[in-house]
């Protein structure tokens, strides 16, 4: 943002702080509640992969409402909005470029949760004990923490 030659104090003076009316706040709050109920309702309707998309869109709308009106970004210095959008963008870059790797990696079994060799059907070494099987409720008493024995050959053979 270019400044005129003799801009006083370098930073621009923000005009008198903006004080919003009570009705604005209550209105925004009402919309937020409606959107929350909407997203919960939609979650019961099975739409396949679309559900995730809709949930994120509604959450983003709610987030936008909070950011613009409760956090006054609407009347605030545009640079602060740039900071927020920049941060979200960098988070998005982190997700997308990591997905670039993880989505195209060698075969992983979606249900069983580990990687197997297509040729031999054998679990890769280092996979967990009991990988691939479903976990049943043990029906035990108070939250027993019996740990599934991590398969023997997965600990470092040397104790150090």
């Amino acid at each position, binding site marked *: 943002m270019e400044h005129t030659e003799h801009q006083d104090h*370098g930073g621009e003076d923000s005009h008198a702080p903006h004080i919003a009316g009570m009705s604005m706040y209550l209105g925004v709050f009402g919309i937020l509640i409606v959107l929350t109920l909407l997203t919960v309702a939609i979650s019961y309707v099975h739409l396949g992969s679309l559900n995730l998309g809709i949930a994120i869109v509604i959450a983003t709308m709610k987030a936008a409402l909070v950011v613009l009106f409760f956090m006054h970004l609407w009347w605030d210095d545009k640079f602060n909005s740039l900071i927020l959008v920049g941060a979200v963008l960098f988070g998005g870059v982190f997700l997308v470029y990591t997905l670039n790797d993880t989505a195209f990696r060698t075969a992983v079994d979606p249900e069983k949760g580990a990687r197997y060799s297509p040729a031999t059907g054998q679990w890769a070494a280092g996979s967990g004990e009991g990988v691939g099987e479903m976990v049943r409720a043990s029906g035990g008493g108070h939250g027993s923490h019996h740990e599934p024995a991590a398969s023997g050959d997965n600990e470092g053979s040397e104790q150090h």
Partner: protein
Amino acid sequence: MTAPAATADHAAHSSHDDHHGNYLTATSGLKSWLLTVDHKRIGLMYLVAVLLAFLAGGVFALLIRTELLFPGETMMQAHTYNQVFTLHGIIMVFLFIIPSIPAALGNFFLPIMLGAKDVAFPKLNLASFYIYLLGAILALAGIVVGSVDTGWTFYTPYSSSPARSASVLWLAMSVFIMGFSSILTGVNFIATVHKMRAPGLTWNRLPLFVWGMYATAVIQVLATPVLAITVLLLFMEKLVGLGIFDPRMGGDPVLFQHFFWFYSHPAVYIMILPGMAVVNEIIATFSRRKIFGYMFVAMSSVALALLGFLVWGHHMFTSGMSEFGTTVFSALTFLVAIPSGVKLFNWVATLYRGQISLASPMLYALAFIALFSIGGLTGLFLGTLSVDIHLHDTYFVVAHFHYVMVGGTVIGFLGGLHYWWPKMTGKLYSESLARVSFVLVFVGFNLAFMPQFVLGSRGMPRRYYDYLEQFHGLHAASTVGAYILGVGFVIMAYMFVQSLTKGKKSPANPWASAGFEWMTATPPSLHNFDEDPIIDRGPYDYDKTPELGNVPKY
């Protein structure tokens, strides 16, 4: 910057500066130092802490090189060697190189260059220093408690396997806390640059040092939190068996590498950008010219900061990442090479038809250009996919990042230290000793790391405690170089101490520089300026300040 006329409305402020003398003598006593909120004192305290960390890291470096003098067990066992190279990495990266220029020199000179009295949040600045100290103490505790031998990258599952001692928990906590010191410095600098510029100091008149600090601050604020979450996840993985990086629990170790390098590649730009920032100031002063292509150099700093977030995958080309992900990262990595090239070309163009004085700071700036170009060009080898498959995790990589970090940032830091030493301490240092130590540092550094390129391309892997006979000659040369480098630093330390004790008093502008920071007294008063400055020229306008003439001889 013309001598500011004492305007009426500022009278209220000037009466505030009743302290006579400079910031060193304004108040005295330990409490005045430990509880100071003056950015200059905090800068000095950081400088002392950072130099101590550099000493410790350097000692560990010499231990590594001594062990590698001969194949087989020379003076320590494998596990001890692994601890030593891990500590060398952690101390040099987190305790020295990241806070060195931004926190020490940046804290001191950013407000002065902006014409401000202090950084935007002085108490936050002091908090950042104490958080840094807390992190450093926790790191030392981690060293004392147990043997962290995971490398500074903490790759899982080695770092999270139960066999590793508890010191990884200590180190994780210390890195988590030191990250906040970096974040707070970043937040401080950004707010200062945006809101505390002197009247008339528009964005295209900012000194390039400030542009460098601004770009570094943006990376510090946006990248360090990802390190915090990575280290927190590692902490919980180890403490309660979270299973997020543990392959036995459906986790994925390569995901840890993504998390780690998403921070650590921008972190290497946190390291190099300040080095470049200092070089701008030195080259402008000692060639008596404005930096060629000012806005291009400034924008390439910002471009490096932003592009730095897109390329972390080139640390993981052989890590089992999918071929598609690898290709995308390789393509983007080449984009990052361009801003560095633009800076180098512009610096060399600045020397054209200047009045170049070869005082010791300028020697460091010129050495920076030479060594950083080697560091940058060897990055091309590592960015090209098929060649990186052969070179990754070998000594070629070790040589590459030492050329960029030591040849770049440390040489830049030393140049800045020499350049601003009179301004900080009011004392001159002995020019002859400075040149002797420069030659030793330059020769020692090249002898230490040039052989490692060939070691790496011939297939010598990294972090090897013991190596085959065929690599012996090159390792021996590298060890000799490391010792020469060590001697160079010892002489430099002696020179600075001698300057403090017996150095001559420095004139107000020893290098006759047109930089804004030289417009106040040397050393500066407590509130930097007696009257608020009005800026009416660019940062290196030697055309508008003919009275400065050339750099005086020392």
